[in-house]
């Protein structure tokens, strides 16, 4: 497997109270990689470090085969970036913004940019400052897509957008990815959104990587087990128990790394497994964070 983004031992401490600590990240080429974490987890800082917008303190970063931040000019030519906050010049019109952006991207597709502008109902003469939040979000996505990047780095691209705009933006994104086999790193705290579109998931909290695995593995592996006769189960389980709570004379365990073959564990250790309950990504995410914070 090749990686579009790879970090090793990445360290960054901007001041007291917060740090990115020993971050190891692996974004497979061609993946739709969801970067999940609560507000303040360090997602935006990590993205800025990846793109060389903030200088790292130690560790290594490789993006599209180039070491960062040294290779940032080449990487930014091949990367579409949508930052968390609008970063466009407010006094320029939509058309002037497209013109400025196109000058710096040799693979700029003017015809497609015009098509997206029409599709997103953006008016060329309107000033960026007068655009609504949704229109600004669409314009930033347009710029990132029309430069035909190999890698898209999207920092909360749909945060605060209404459902219609969000759908338009994600449709355009998925359309591009399917036709160009691009890699996408999309950060969000909107779990359901990532669940629908991503095939890899990473969870970050307090500057640390909590989990990084294929989406299906994540969803399949996190279960709630309803168990009776818990007291008799003394063997070390083959899965990770994230949380335990009393329930109707037995216990409910939230576990990670579960497969059906592990049912034997209860047969051999004396416990009785009554039920295995599937969790959706949001429940799994919340419980994962809860157990991570508990352990920390």
């Amino acid at each position, binding site marked *: 497997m090749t990686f579009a983004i790879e970090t090793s031992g990445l360290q960054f401490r901007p001041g007291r109270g917060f740090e990115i600590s020993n971050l190891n990240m692996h974004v497979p080429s061609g993946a739709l990689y969801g970067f999940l974490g609560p507000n303040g987890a360090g997602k935006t800082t990590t993205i800025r470090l990846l793109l060389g917008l903030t200088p790292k303190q130690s560790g290594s970063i490789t993006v599209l085969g180039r070491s960062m931040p040294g290779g940032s000019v080449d990487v930014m030519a091949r990367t579409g970036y949508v930052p968390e906050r609008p970063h466009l*010049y407010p006094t320029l019109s939509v058309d002037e913004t497209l013109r400025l952006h196109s*000058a*710096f991207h040799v693979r700029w597709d*003017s015809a497609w940019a015009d098509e997206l502008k029409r599709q997103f109902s953006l008016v060329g003469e309107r000033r960026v400052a007068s655009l609504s939040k949704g229109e600004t979000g669409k314009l930033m996505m347009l710029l990132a897509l029309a430069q035909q990047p190999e890698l898209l780095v999207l920092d909360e691209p749909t945060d605060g957008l209404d459902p219609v705009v969000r759908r338009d933006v994600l449709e355009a994104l998925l359309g591009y990815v399917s036709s160009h086999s691009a890699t996408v790193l999309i950060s969000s705290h909107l779990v359901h959104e990532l669940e629908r579109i991503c095939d890899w998931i990473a969870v970050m909290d307090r500057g640390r990587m909590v989990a990084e695995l294929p989406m299906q593995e994540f969803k399949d592996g996190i279960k709630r087990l309803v168990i009776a006769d818990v007291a008799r189960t003394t063997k070390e389980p083959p899965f990770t128990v994230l949380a335990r709570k009393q329930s109707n004379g037995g216990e409910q365990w939230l576990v990670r790394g579960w497969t059906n073959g592990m049912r034997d564990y209860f047969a051999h250790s004396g416990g009785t497994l009554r039920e295995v309950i599937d969790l959706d990504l949001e429940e799994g995410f919340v419980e994962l964070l809860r157990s991570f914070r508990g352990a920390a």
Partner: protein
Amino acid sequence: MTTRPSRWRALFETQWKWTRGVLLLIAVTTFALPLLSLRSSAGARDDSSFISSIQAWAVGYAFVAAGLGLLVGIFSWSYDHRLRHVYALSLPVERWRYSLMRFTGGLALISLPVATLFVSAEIVAHSSLVPPMLHAYPVALTLRFAFAALVAYSVFFAISSATARTAGYILATIGLLFVLDIVLRSAGSRIDVLGHVTDILFAAPGLLAVFGGRWMLIDV
């Protein structure tokens, strides 16, 4: 369909958009200054009074050149600062090249008021109101103005391209000099701190020496 301009032109267009209002105002001022100075001197009794009257306007050129450099220098970076340089840094261009394009874009903008000054100075030079024994120096005045604007622009471009912290250090240094001067004076010291600094900066070959001396459009 959007046509792709060159990178320099695309950046220049943004700077033009940000500065055009103030730039046109300065261009009108630089066009008006020589004409107004000639008109105010036209009724002079003799050549000496004529030159004195013309000289009274000289400080205006220095101020306009400084203002031009200040405004174009600050406007070159103001929107990048406001956006925390995120857009500029996300463009696939080296930082030094980006700064160079912004700098040369500003230079091109400065050339507009310089050109209007030259045209106006040439009109004055060919005017019949200039006494026959005196000479006009439109090229020299324009070159001095252009050089002064370039110096001011370079200084303010450099300061405004730096971080707010660096700008703070510069302001703090200037403030410290004033405080030191006041303290020394109140202690009865003969050391003139501000006088020394002014000499270093404005006397040749000081950085701002071009602002001193005679800004004469018409002289002997």
